[in-house]
């Protein structure tokens, strides 16, 4: 088990049906997650990062989704499992944390019951044992009065406390892998810090693998071991967190870094990526997908069939356009007159 990655995604393509056609929201994604590793997937809305997470969990509506490729987890391909077999993986071996704690909990069920439900599904524990474990879990996720919260309904808790309950649900059955989809986006900054610390703490104790989906590079910097940057359904760059933050290579990654206001850039102009994120129907299906947004880079810099290549040990970049990439001098902001 030691050298085997915990999760290995190979050439995953997730397509959704719109009208009569299928459009790939996740395209040819390969990614591994090891035990005790936090892999962040970063990108803007519509890049396919959440679709990727839901594909691993098998939570896309089957009748409108086509999944191709392989998702190997503990020696089995999740995509070939039946619904029943998949239900045994969900919640037991892979836990999931959702973005918005206000909506992620059933308003008519007490927090205790919602945490216990995972155990009911996956174990034969007695109700007393479940209760004990639930209260233990609540304590573990930092809830000050677990006996009381056990009996409370979600609306009686603050956002931060609810997110702790959501985390308790995700880790209730000691999963090997936790997928956290924007776990702190809906929270205030001080609560965000607490939740990040909690996740790190839990991970240190349990050696769980974590897939952290986020748009916030700050959260990535604080949490991740390895980072995959997604654009338009593809991974455009993967590297360990230190390399990526010190030496980002892909033009999209570099643009992203330049567009966040940081303490060093006070009152300077922020970098604006020209053009707009293409919609699922209008994704460029061949060539470099970022080409249209860096028009000043000549055609010959791009590959015809851009692949994710290892440019230095464990640092992968898609397309050759990064080699001679430079920011355009006249950064006039987004003056495109088009309508998406």
């Amino acid at each position: 088990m030691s050298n085997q990655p915990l999760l290995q995604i190979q050439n995953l393509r997730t397509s959704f049906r719109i009208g009569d056609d299928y459009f790939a929201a996740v395209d040819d994604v390969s990614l591994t997650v090891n035990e005790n590793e936090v892999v962040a997937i970063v990108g803007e809305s519509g890049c396919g990062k959440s679709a990727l997470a839901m594909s691993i969990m098998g939570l896309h509506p089957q009748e409108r989704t086509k999944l191709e490729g392989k998702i190997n987890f503990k020696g089995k391909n999740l995509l070939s499992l039946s619904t029943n077999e998949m239900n045994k993986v969900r919640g037991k071996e892979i836990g999931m944390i959702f973005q918005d704690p206000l909506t992620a909990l059933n308003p008519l069920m007490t927090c205790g019951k919602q945490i216990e439900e995972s155990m009911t599904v996956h174990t034969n524990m007695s109700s007393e044992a479940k209760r004990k474990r639930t209260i233990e879990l609540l304590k573990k996720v930092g809830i000050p009065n677990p006996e009381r919260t056990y009996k409370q309904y979600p609306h009686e808790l603050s956002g931060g406390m609810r997110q702790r309950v959501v985390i308790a649900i995700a880790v209730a059955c000691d999963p090997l892998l936790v997928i956290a989809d924007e776990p702190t986006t809906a929270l205030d900054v001080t609560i965000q810090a607490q939740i990040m610390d909690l996740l790190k703490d839990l991970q240190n104790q349990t050696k769980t693998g974590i897939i952290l989906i986020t748009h916030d590079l700050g959260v990535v910097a604080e949490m991740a071991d390895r980072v995959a940057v997604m654009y338009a359904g593809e991974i455009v760059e993967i590297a360990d967190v230190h390399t990526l933050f010190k030496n980002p290579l892909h033009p999209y990654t570099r643009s992203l870094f330049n567009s966040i206001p940081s303490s060093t850039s006070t009152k300077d102009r922020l970098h604006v990526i020209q053009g707009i994120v293409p919609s699922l129907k209008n994704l460029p299906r061949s060539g470099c997908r970022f080409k249209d947004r860096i028009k000043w880079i000549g055609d010959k810099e791009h590959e015809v069939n851009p692949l994710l290549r290892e440019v230095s040990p464990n640092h992968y970049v898609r397309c050759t356009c990064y080699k001679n990439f430079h920011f355009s001098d006249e950064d006039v902001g987004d003056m495109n007159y088009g309508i998406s």
Partner: protein
Amino acid sequence: MLKFILRRILVMIPQLFILSILIFLLAKAMPGDALTGQLASNPKMDAQTLHELKQKLGMYDPYYVQYARWIKGLLHGNLGMSIIHQTPVTSLIAGKMWNTVLLGAAVLILSYLIAIPLGIIGGRWTDTWADKMIVGYNYLTYATPLFIFALLMLFIFGFVLGWFPTSGSVDIRVENGTFAYYMSKLNHLILPALSGAIVSTTVTIQYLRNEIIDTKIKDFVKTARAKGVSESKVYTRHIFRNSLLPIAAFLGYDIVSLIGGSVFLESIYGYPGIGQLFLTSIMQRDFSVVTALVMISGLATLIGTLLSDIILSAVDPRIRIE
């Protein structure tokens, strides 16, 4: 909880008072009265007796005196005398009330028995042939007026096929209290109850179906699936309970509206109940009966809203009343 109910009842007092004034004025504003019509039909009635009768009944008194007399009676539980039937309104209503409640309860139960499964099926398996049939059924019942549907049912199952009696609430030939008596009651009930139920399923089915479709895509349902909860349990434990909330909110009104009766059903099936009494009383200008019935249904509506709030607070922990 008790405090809440008490306060709500206190608030009802001025509401009922205003309602009573409105009803009284409206009744007085209606043209004609219960007696004038008898001039032509009743040989014992002449202008002189009519005048004396009216005087005796206080019909010439100023409105406020008449109102005061009426409201005083009301407060004593005396709803007045029916001029047409020459009996106290209370006993007149009480006699019909049981039939109406019986019919109303049957309609309500049948309607939920049909609507809830259909709504659940339509919501869970959207766009399947079963769902399309249910939506079709819904359009049909929505477009069909009760009085036409009831007449059709009466014609087919009552007159053509002869399966059910076509009028009344019980066979007058059977002895009161025997087994045959109850069977006869049931037999008289089936057809009107079924007609009423089928037509009233529309709203519940539509509501429930939409509610389930909305709830299906909620985040907490995703959380449940991510826990590994099986599809059927996701529905029974998470989706249905949340989707039934708005239906539960209507239940309060529904229960109380039982006593209002249905004018259409009772008239078409010749079923002796409150609805039928209401209609004939209006036609005969038997105002004491009309005002009493409107007052009762007004009171029922107020109690219905209170009941709905209480039911909702019982099923939804987010709503707490104190």
